[in-house]
């Protein structure tokens, strides 16, 4: 087993966090979350008409899973919208954790760094444990840490794109420069190998949704991701060998048959 992992001082059994959207059915979602072994799942908020039951039905389902909830501020385009959404989420879900999203571009769903910092500062001051969805930009990451964020969630690639880690060197630089911050790759993961790569870079956890929810068999894919995350983490803790330019025989050659010194 790999070492323990915590968010906001709370120790978590799994380094794989999953979303609750886009599954073919609530039952498939429930089975996939169980197969992922996730101890944290993300949830959202939407406008609800009077008499509509969707919210209550989802609430009951999600409570039955016995997992920690991480509400998001999806769809917010300004710091003010995100701050208000975070407060509504805190009341409904009874948690101070918030996945802070402030979107700056409709095509890439890239975070707005300026709105993100503004909202993060306000929410930390209001007592939230803020987990900002951010880019791989190092200086933005440092600003968010300055605001009091103890967890950062840089994207691997645009949300739902399944492209994997587009800028692994920048992600590695974040890990190197922010050794004490909990880093979670959020968004863009498509395959278990992408998740393993993030974990091998030393990321503390991976958060994904579409890669499991829209897989041909979400439950099986969730199980595959659980193993990939665990394998990647174990590999990081085991300290991989450095890359070399030339071959280096793995079998010791001295005194092998026909051995002679050149």
């Amino acid at each position: 087993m790999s070492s323990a992992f915590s968010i906001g001082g709370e120790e978590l059994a799994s380094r794989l966090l999953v979303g609750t959207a886009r599954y073919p059915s609530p039952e498939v979602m429930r089975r996939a979350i169980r197969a992922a072994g996730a101890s944290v799942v993300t949830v959202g908020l939407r406008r609800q008409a009077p008499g509509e039951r969707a919210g209550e039905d989802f609430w009951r389902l999600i409570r039955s899973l016995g997992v920690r909830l991480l509400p998001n501020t999806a769809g917010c385009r300004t710091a003010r919208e995100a701050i208000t959404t975070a407060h509504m989420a805190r009341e409904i879900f009874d948690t101070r954790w918030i996945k802070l999203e402030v979107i700056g571009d409709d095509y890439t769903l890239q975070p707005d760094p300026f709105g993100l910092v503004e909202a993060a500062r306000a929410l930390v001051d209001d007592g939230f444990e803020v987990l900002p969805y951010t880019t791989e930009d190092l200086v933005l990451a440092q600003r968010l840490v300055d605001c009091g964020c103890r967890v950062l969630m840089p994207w691997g690639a645009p949300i739902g794109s399944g492209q994997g880690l587009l800028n692994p060197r920048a992600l590695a630089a974040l890990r190197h420069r922010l050794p004490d911050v909990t880093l979670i790759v959020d968004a863009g993961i498509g395959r278990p190998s992408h998740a393993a790569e993030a974990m091998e870079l030393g990321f503390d956890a991976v958060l994904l949704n579409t890669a499991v929810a829209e897989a041909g068999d979400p439950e099986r894919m969730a199980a595959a991701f659980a193993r990939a995350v665990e394998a990647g983490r174990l590999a990081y803790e085991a300290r991989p060998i450095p890359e070399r330019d030339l071959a280096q025989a793995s079998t010791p050659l001295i005194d092998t048959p026909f051995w002679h010194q050149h």
Partner: protein
Amino acid sequence: MNEVLHLTVNGEPTRVPGPASVASLLRRLAYDPAGHLAVAVNKTFVPRAQHQHHPLRDGDEIDVVAPMQGG
């Protein structure tokens, strides 16, 4: 006084007799009082404990939200 308040609730134009509070609006629209709902007025959060005391004004925009799936 039978003042009518022109409100926008979740993007829909809604008229209610005044005076009204967040709590009276939710009752009038038949929202489940035990439901998992949160409210913002003009993009500012109004905590449940203040629903009774938060007066609504003509032109207010109200958002009523509930849990949903999210990534």
